[in-house]
């Protein structure tokens, strides 16, 4: 059983190892598929390829903004879906879950059709705004699910107790509910950020000419992906792993105090 698990883990991490390994490659020509020799060139000049810096920058900005908006909207929705009973709750629930069950291509295609249907040619310009809208859209559902999971773990007793002691709804929220669900909100934000940075299909449909980092990779894939892409990919991976590590350790520390 454990041998199998070990094999499975190796299988899962193998591509990651290859990515990191090949970021140290020095390929002859554009294609980075065969190991030639060890080199730190790409690491020393990660933005040497034209277009890569702006693509990474765009990805980061969009990820940051869409995470912000989606986390706020999603947290509010999670609160509404867990802490209250009302008509239409089931419907709202379904609407939140539906995007997660829809293939990305359908979501991207439908957004594109929306943009195209607004007015006459040359139609709604595909650019930063259109990408941002799309990213917020698919992130909302994931934020709701993550925050909701955290909320469900704290049935309303604590809030009721606070209100019995004289706090009004506003104070109860900020002093009791919010600190309790903060780990959930942070987890949701991290999830939304990583989903946004990595998104390709939906972005591809709604971006037009502007390029995010995944779109840059896709465009380069036909002629040969430069080594710098592997470098940046490795950096993103390491940063993500570190963030998760830090948040977990911090979470454990605060749980102890």
């Amino acid at each position: 059983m454990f041998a199998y698990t070990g094999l499975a883990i190796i299988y899962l991490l193998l591509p990651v190892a290859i990515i990191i390994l090949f970021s140290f490659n020095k390929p002859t020509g554009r294609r980075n598929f065969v190991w030639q020799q060890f080199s730190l060139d790409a690491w020393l000049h990660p933005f040497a390829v034209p277009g890569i810096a702006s693509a990474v920058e765009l990805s980061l900005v969009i990820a940051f903004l869409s995470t912000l908006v989606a986390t706020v909207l999603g947290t509010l929705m999670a609160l509404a879906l867990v802490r209250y009973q009302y008509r239409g709750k089931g419907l709202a629930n379904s609407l939140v879950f539906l995007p997660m069950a829809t293939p990305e291509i359908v979501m991207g295609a439908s957004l594109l059709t929306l943009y195209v249907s607004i007015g006459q040619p040359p139609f709604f310009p595909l650019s930063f705004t259109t990408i941002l809208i799309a990213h917020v859209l698919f992130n909302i559902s994931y934020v709701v699910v993550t925050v909701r999971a955290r909320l469900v773990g704290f049935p309303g007793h604590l809030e009721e107790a606070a209100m019995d002691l004289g706090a009004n709804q506003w104070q109860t929220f900020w002093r009791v509910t919010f600190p309790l669900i903060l780990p959930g909100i942070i987890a949701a934000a991290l999830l939304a950020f990583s989903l946004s940075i990595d998104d390709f299909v939906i972005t591809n449909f709604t971006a037009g000419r502007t390029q995010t980092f995944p779109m840059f990779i896709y465009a380069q894939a036909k002629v040969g992906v430069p080594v710098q892409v592997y470098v940046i990919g490795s950096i993103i991976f390491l940063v993500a792993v570190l963030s998760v590590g830090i948040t977990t350790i911090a979470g454990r520390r605060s749980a102890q105090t």
Partner: protein
Amino acid sequence: MTAWLRRRRGIAPYLLLAPGLLWLLVFFAYPLVEVFLASFWSGSFERGYTFSLSNWTNYRDAITPVLPQLGRSIAYSLAATILTFLISYPLAYTIAIRGGRAKNLLLFLVVAPFFTSFLLRTLSWKIILGDDGVFFGPLKAIGILPGDFRVLATPMAVVAGITYNFLPFMTLPIYVALEKIDLRLVEAARDLYAGPWKRGGLVAGAAVGGILAGILSAIFGWPVGVVGAAAVVVGAVVGRLFISESFVRVTFPLSLPGVFAGSLLTFIPAVGDYVNAEFLGNPDTRMLGNVIQNRFLVQQNYPQASALSFILMGGILVIVAVYARVLGTEELTTGRR
């Protein structure tokens, strides 16, 4: 503000829901309606489109030339879903039931690959599965494999890519379902039915192996007889040794909601995927996703592309409904009988 909130508690949830719900309605629900409408357009991208019901022919014109791709999307996704299930279930089982303190670490390792770019992961497989690459190069040099053996640019590579990319989607729901199981039930079952499920395990393992081999051979064009026989034998051995009666009667049924969720979370995105087919396949392995992407972004043939998207969505809904009916939704969504 606060006194108002307390008096009007009735509308508080609606206020909280409003911004997010509005976003979802405007940018998700309504566009889907638009896609439906767009499938009845005629005209062109430069000059504008007009709507007309008589354009239902768009559907026929769009789908007829791409029936092979549609079939491929379903077949590859089905194969990938089955493969992810076979790989994920034992993994999720080990982590949930034998994981102990290492559970979180193991789960993290399962999810960790997702911290790299989806495109880079797929390209990475291109390196690993390369004709003379890390894996096959040495094997060919020794002579185990014939010189012209290749995996890249074949359906096998595409399915392997899809399987890999969606593995966590299958593993996590199964893990969650298994973790919730009260182990005392399993202990009680062990007391009642001791040990391996002798005859049953043999038959079940053989059957699963046979069916799997049949499906995969049909898709990849392997020689059914040889592969089928081998799979039946391997399946029988695995079934006899590893599957206990308590597993079949208690654990597996209780984990079904997780299996259901996992299969859907794997199959649905896989059916629409086109990156795996593009990076790891060849022009003959193109899936419906490739076609839709092409129609929208390259040909800018919005009416036909919308028709295809709608067919894809409709197909998924039908498959999900049938699947849910087969497994029984009440149990699956609530986990209770």
